[in-house]
């Protein structure tokens, strides 16, 4: 009997493997995930991986950080109908893409490894997957959220595209009836950060750190000005905005070059 199940591959490039682990952490659902679709590749979970098969969906975690990974990514894209970047490393470059440009990265690479030459693979400045191949969908998060992953997985099985939150953490924060920390002059990244975590930090009396990356709908320029007015140090504002946003954020900062401290 022909098998009509979706063929899915889960791949890890450079990162903490947290998004793959999150999938692994769907304990109760894991057996069903393996039943409902053909998981053709998932290095963390299985050793009989098929690295040649044509896939319906490839889930890719991590940033492109070596030439070898770049070759792998291009090869994965070629045999996949759809590619989903999972987590901020694949989607934005992740915290490791926090050097302002390739020269700054090269300088820091040298500071860690000196003049050592590597024979196994050439290192590259970390870049998001979308810089090299077409990304059909992006699941934000550091790591991705279980609810958002499972709903995406279920929609994929039904042949539907993922449906994601476009609003910032503040929305979820209000649902939890938290007091606004910015009103208490505590530096919170909530207004700038993509929702999906359930405002977990604020629920723990702590400010949002921005780990889900930028929210599409956020007005970053206005927020930056507001934070300055509140008296926060511009260097701190930029660092906090940059920590989980990838290299692209530095293009955004360029407009504030003339600002005095």
């Amino acid at each position: 009997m022909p098998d009509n199940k979706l063929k899915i591959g889960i791949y890890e490039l450079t990162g903490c493997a947290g998004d793959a682990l999150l999938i692994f952490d769907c304990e109760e659902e894991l057996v069903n995930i393996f039943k409902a679709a053909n998981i053709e590749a998932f290095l963390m979970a299985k050793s009989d991986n098929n690295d040649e098969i044509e896939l319906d969906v490839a889930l890719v975690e991590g940033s492109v950080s070596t030439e070898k990974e770049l070759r792998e990514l291009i090869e994965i894209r070629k045999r996949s109908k759809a590619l989903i970047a999972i987590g901020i490393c694949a989607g934005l470059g992740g915290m490791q893409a926090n050097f302002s440009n390739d020269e700054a990265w090269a300088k820091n690479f040298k500071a860690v490894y000196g003049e050592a030459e590597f024979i196994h693979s050439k290192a590259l400045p970390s870049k998001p997957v979308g810089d090299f191949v077409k990304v059909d969908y992006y699941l934000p998060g550091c790591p991705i959220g279980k609810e958002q992953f499972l709903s995406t997985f279920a929609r994929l099985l039904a042949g539907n595209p993922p449906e994601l939150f476009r609003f910032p953490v503040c929305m979820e924060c209000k649902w939890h009836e938290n007091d606004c920390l910015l009103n208490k002059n505590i530096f919170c990244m909530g207004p700038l950060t993509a929702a999906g975590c359930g405002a977990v930090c604020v629920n723990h009396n702590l400010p949002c750190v921005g780990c889900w990356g930028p929210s599409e709908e956020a007005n970053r320029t206005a927020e930056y000005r507001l934070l300055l007015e509140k008296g926060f140090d511009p260097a701190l504002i930029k660092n906090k905005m940059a920590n989980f946003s990838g290299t692209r954020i530095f293009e955004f900062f360029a407009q504030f070059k003339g600002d005095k401290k």
Partner: protein
Amino acid sequence: MKKIVIEHIARVEGNGGVTATIDGNVVTDVKFTVNEGPRLVERLTLGKTPEEDVNLVPRICAICTLSHKYAAIRAMEKALNVKVGPKVKLLRELMHLGEMVESHALHVFYLALPDYVGFPNAIAMASKFPLEVKIALEMKQFGNHIMKTTSGRYIHGENPVIGGFGKFPSRDELVWIKSRAIQFMPFVMKTVKLFAELPYPDIPESETLYACCNPPDKKYGIVGDEIILSTGDIIDVQDYKRLTNEFIVSHSFCKRSQYKGKPYSVGALARVNCLGERLEGEARKMYKKYFNARWTKNPLFNNAAQALELAYSFERIPEVIEEALMLPDESIIPYGQKNGKGAGAVEAPRGTLFHAYEVTKGLVSHADIITPTAQNAEDIERYCYITAQKLLESGQEEKIKDRMDLVIRSFDPCISCSVHTVQVRRAPEEDWKTKIAKIKTDVSPVIVGIGSAGHSDDGAGLELARRLRSQGVKDVWIEDETLEKTADWEMDERRPLLFVDAVDFGERPGKITIIPLQHAAWNAVLSHRLLPLVTHRISFDQLKNSYILGIQPASLEDGEQMSEPVLLAMEQILERLKN
């Protein structure tokens, strides 16, 4: 020559590989490679606040996330002189135990067990071991639950901060965890029995050094301000560099460590070796029942040690909660100090993890993070070498790949913090020429001809050295084993040594191979006569860069005449070495 390549070591967290190169019946090269791209984490925390650092660094690794968090917090609190109260300490221990349970349960049942029962993965294993797979899943889920309750999330929870916690778990949540831990005990004891009694093969047995945190009050535990070694040496965590001595190898993005020139292991097996006598309760009974000499030298027993630590953890969790419930919640300790320096160490599930920082004017000015896998990398390579060499010698070449895979996985390497694959390959025919050329471009080596005169081909090294001398090559030493006294060669520590010797590696007579001297140090069988010559006379750096150039002899019988193929090989070597 032949290469065994494990391109992706499946069922480990992260991305790494091992390549073993074989020539005849000797392993000429083993490389453990971390393919994971470099992320330069220590650099990107520079200029950030201590709080941002504590947010960022757990992202080094999803599975050790809380160990990274905890080590960073310990280092920062040391640097900034923050002293937390007893309840914070207890809840940090609880979150850390949660990670230990989650990680060990995942590793022993899901990543390691399928190898021993012959399944490609845990899901497939479920058909034959449904109960084990289900309860293991529950155990892992329980660990996750503790992590979520204490840290705020399964992965990368932000609730633990410098000075305390954003929010304390409620009494009800803690009581539930306590009672659930107690309910698990019968299955935990079965887990210890299962993993302590698995048929771990003898190869790769070999002695090593073990290191772990030395918990206070002579207790078993997973944090400490000191490091204890299986030699009995104690090192203050602030002096961690005395243990780790990091260096770079060209075939991996993961830095390496050795203690006093020797590889050492960290992890559950290291902890059980260093601290096992301190175990209490049921864990102690199991330790007394199962611990034996094989645990001290076989890395595969790491799985048994992990199971034993599950018992420790499940017994410790209720104690921690009982103590914590007696104490009031503590608010986050504020601090005003803007400058300072400190190191913190914790036992991550896979071994000792160090974080060290310097804070200047409120911002991170120096960061140093040393992960367990970085420390284990040298020993992983050494054990892979021993595995490949011993299997080759005993005619079990076909087992090399799988066995190396097993060895690597037993270390529970967390390669995102710094590992996927095993390769076995035959060395290319002219490999020695390439390597000699490389050695010579760096710095000219000191050549030592070795052998015994009057035993036909065994005199090859001696004869070759004599010929090199007569051709005007400098720094050539002759080490004739038939003489009582060893030659008094001069040593320049910066120059590598190149031993020329007849080596029986099971190939056609006259074939030439090049073997790292390190392998001779790991494997007495390979060249028993070299060991006394090198062990006390050369430094570790020199050992790492030195080689044995071996010629396959046709005969080692008494006699002066060397065989034709060996004479031809000598000509070739002479040609390469003379300028």
